[in-house]
């Protein structure tokens, strides 16, 4: 039993790596990209955490940090949102027009209301985005973000997802990522640079 469970785990993990590797290769660099940054992303029409329509126009002309996650997430999502919001506060005046979005990878459970509640402590810095799952999948894919809904034995499910924060400049170009639990100062420097571009 031990063996097949291990095999199952290994198999799952290998599958995750295999499916995700193409996307990750694009932004594995921990350094922010200065030369010929790729234009990623796709048009979208979704709902924000205030229940209002939101499209790709919301990203236009402003440096933007994107985090894909979900509210049924005890650690990475709240910690990442807290970290991004804290960094933005620490930037002070240097924050300028920097904005951040928390995009649900679990829109079936994450209603705009629930998203709004989840980001409430970070409301000054972060807006939530949710909407139909197929549309979210297209948006995530366009940013090289991996999403996989995984059914659990008890009928519940979880969602595997890329945990990095994606950094987009004013012209909508991909400039790098902030990894989960990245060095605080490094992350701060990346945001500062992103705003200056």
């Amino acid at each position, binding site marked *: 039993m031990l063996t097949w469970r291990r095999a199952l*785990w290994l198999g799952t993990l290998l599958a995750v790596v295999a499916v995700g590797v193409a996307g990750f290769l694009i932004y594995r660099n921990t350094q922010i990209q200065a030369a010929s940054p790729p234009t990623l992303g796709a048009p979208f029409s979704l709902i924000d955490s205030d229940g209002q329509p939101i499209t790709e126009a919301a990203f236009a002309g402003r440096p933007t940090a994107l985090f894909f996650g979900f509210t049924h997430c*005890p650690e990475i999502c709240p910690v990442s949102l807290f970290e991004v919001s804290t960094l933005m506060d620490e930037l002070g005046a240097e924050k300028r027009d920097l904005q951040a979005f928390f995009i649900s990878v679990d829109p079936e459970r994450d209603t705009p209301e629930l998203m709004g*509640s989840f980001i409430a402590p970070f409301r000054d810095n972060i807006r939530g985005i949710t909407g139909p799952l197929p549309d979210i999948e297209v948006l995530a894919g366009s940013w090289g973000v991996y999403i996989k809904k995984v059914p659990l034995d008890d009928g519940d499910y979880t969602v595997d997802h890329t945990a990095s924060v994606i950094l987009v400049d004013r012209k909508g170009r991909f400039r790098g990522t902030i990894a989960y639990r990245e060095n605080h100062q490094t992350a701060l420097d990346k945001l500062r640079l992103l705003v200056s571009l």
Partner: protein
Amino acid sequence: MTQRDAGGCLAAMKQLVSRSLSALAGLAVAGLLVFSITAHAEGMHGLMLKDGWSRETTANARVGGGYLTIMNHGEMADRLLSVRADHAGMSEVHNMIMQDDVMVMRPVEDPLVIEAGAMLELQPGGLHLMFMQLEQPHVAGESLDVVLVFEHAGERTVTLEVLSMRDSMERMAESGGSHGDHDSGHSDHDSGHSDHDSGHSHN
């Protein structure tokens, strides 16, 4: 052996024990005796649950995490069979693995094994308690009582201190940068304890 001989033998043993105890008392400064008494007081199932904490959640959060250290000072391995908490409809042990920037979180289906003399840490970035169907949010400054049911030690209650987001970040920073590295379920931080393979299959 006559009864008298046996009596003499017993007396000799008593004397030996007495002398040994005196010697041992001399070592009490080193804390060995304290450790020994503690271990014996807890009998064969010398589980110690400590450093329990949790992270505050937002008002409508459906899930929350919990962390603690389980030390087995006993003489036999024990297994964590189930978890329950009044504040959550369902409580389980989950494991989190970061795989190339992708977060993978799964319930741990086989009971966690805490080997004799070993320490099992449930920490951010790895094994943790997962509270689902929260009846009430985790509020910073409050505490949560959680019952862990062990195969041998039975039901043991541990109190988790709920930390604010800021305090929880500090706590995570203190626990070091070895996150994502805890899937073996064991740590060798305590040099006095051996680091066994726990036998659970989530690595």
